[in-house]
């Protein structure tokens, strides 16, 4: 395959400039318009029906008292949203509790999933024997899927018969931690398992980013007498900025959408402490069929996420302007 394209922008821009009537571009073919829509049609049917329509329908549902199983779906205006912000409503506590759970999980998992995979990627970025084998091993859990990962770690982390407690006890540490039914231990378990599961994914993205930093920059830094730390600070980190931003955004979105780990490993225990926002939305909408309420909750979560993404974007841009690179 061609060398990975770190920054597709130049290629795209070039292609589009040429498209605007460049000399080596053939004239627009007759009938291109209709042909283009025919090529697009199958995708657009799916895209319209299962991406665009649901976005609009979701807003519509959130304005109704919408039960999938009942014929009447009365319009209630913004009541579903108001309920979620009204401390006296029955939805208030479970919803904000679940938002808090998602917040805690995101707060602890995101930094780990940015830093640890970078460290692994740095170790992997030099040429050495067995490099591809190690890379393949670290990536392997990711292909397993959350159900397998959840079921296996629920077993390994079982308080009484789990291997983890057994080995912790054997080396003199507390061997009876309730990893799946007490906080903060459950958070340690959920974050730890998530790091184990997705570390390889982020590391692989970093490795590709590291390989795209021109060697000359490191050589120049070496000639200037830079230490390894300062070449990391002034060459590696700035060179990785677009990749790090991508990893950060993707990891935030993934962490804020955490469902399977909690569903399988803790089932929200203790009480509802580890019931995440998605878990709450799915249970409310697809199990109790209060879909209006669930749709409203999913919009609040989405808006919070978009706001967070904008902040991350702004932070990375601001840093990019301050640091010379």
């Amino acid at each position, binding site marked *: 395959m061609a060398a990975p394209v770190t920054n597709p922008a130049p290629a795209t821009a070039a292609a589009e400039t040429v498209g605007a009537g460049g000399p080596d571009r053939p004239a627009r073919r007759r009938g291109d318009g209709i042909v283009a829509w025919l090529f697009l049609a*199958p995708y657009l049917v799916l895209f319209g029906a299962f991406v665009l329509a649901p976005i609009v329908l979701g807003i519509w549902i959130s304005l109704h008292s919408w039960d999938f199983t009942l014929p009447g779906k009365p319009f209630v205006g913004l009541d579903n949203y108001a309920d979620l912000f009204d401390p006296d409503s029955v939805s208030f506590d479970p919803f904000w509790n679940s938002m808090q759970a998602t917040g805690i999980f995101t707060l602890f998992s995101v930094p780990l999933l940015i830093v640890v995979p970078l460290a692994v990627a740095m170790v992997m970025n030099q040429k050495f024997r067995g490099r591809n084998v190690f890379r393949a091993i670290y990536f392997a859990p990711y292909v397993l899927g959350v159900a397998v990962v959840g079921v296996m770690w629920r077993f390994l982390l079982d308080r009484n018969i789990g291997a983890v407690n057994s080995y912790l006890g054997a080396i003199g540490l507390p061997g009876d931690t309730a990893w799946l039914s007490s906080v903060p231990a459950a958070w340690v378990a959920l974050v730890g398992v998530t790091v184990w599961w997705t570390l390889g994914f982020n590391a692989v993205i970093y490795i590709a980013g590291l390989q795209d930093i021109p060697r000359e920059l490191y050589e120049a830094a070496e000639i200037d007498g830079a230490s390894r730390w300062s070449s990391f600070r002034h060459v590696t980190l700035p060179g990785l900025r677009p990749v790090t931003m991508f990893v950060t955004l993707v990891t935030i979105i993934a962490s804020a959408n955490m469902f399977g780990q909690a569903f399988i490993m803790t089932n929200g225990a203790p009480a509802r402490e580890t019931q995440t926002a998605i878990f709450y939305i799915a249970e409310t909408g697809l199990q109790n069929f209060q879909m209006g309420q669930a749709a409203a909750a999913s919009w609040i979560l989405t808006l919070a996420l978009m706001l967070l993404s904008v902040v991350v974007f702004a932070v990375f841009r601001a840093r990019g302007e301050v640091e010379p690179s």
Partner: protein
Amino acid sequence: MTGLGRVLRYTVLVVLTLLFISPLLFVLVTSFKTPGEAVQTPPTWSPDPFSLQAYERIFGATDTPVFRWFLNSMIAATANAALVVVTAALAAYALARLEFRGKKIVFALIVSTLFVPPVILVIPNYEIVGRLYWLDTLVAIIVPTAASAFGVFFLRQFFIGLPRELEESAFLDGANRWQVFTRVVLPLSKPALATLALLSFLTNWNDFLWPVYVLFSPENQTLQAGLSTLQSANAVRYDLLMAGAVVASVPVLLLYLVAQRFVIEGVSRSGLKG
């Protein structure tokens, strides 16, 4: 690299490898234990006696038909991957090579949904799938997730990077758009198409929340969703659960072993879209 540095690096790598391999190995070992030995502490690493009863039990049970789930997952993931690749390739070619009114808007609309959190689609899509009478069928697992904005974006980038000369000379030979697309562009794009197919297959195979709520009947589950019903049906039969986990893992691990290059390359390139 100095000798000390090399020792340090291999120490880190080996410790990490143990952290990744040993839990998986322990799951495999446990699936061959008797129910009693599976919950024994301290844990044992060689099943004594070596028992296949967990596998016999999960393959035979009617409430947890694991083999049926395996087939369901295979069918759903394969069909979904095919649908993603076909629709995305067609759309991406139009966006990469054809000129038409509204092209920029269509492309911007598709790309903007790359950043829409999937949660926003779950509730309304359940309603839509319900209206289509697709609930509790594999169609619900195959079709709604097939509109891949990432796929369109990824293939468009690839098509733009292909040399135009081959297409031009095909046109001079009298080929039409469709022939150029199927006989020139697609054969040149095999690696990109394979990567997208693999990533789509894996994503669908591992999808969890959606199948858990959309499928109800025991015989209609996918492996991932079924695994969670296996768990609620056999809370303390860890030998059964681990056998289920092994059955769910082996196909993807084999696929990964064969196509590891494409998977990893696909993921690393996905990071470069930012």
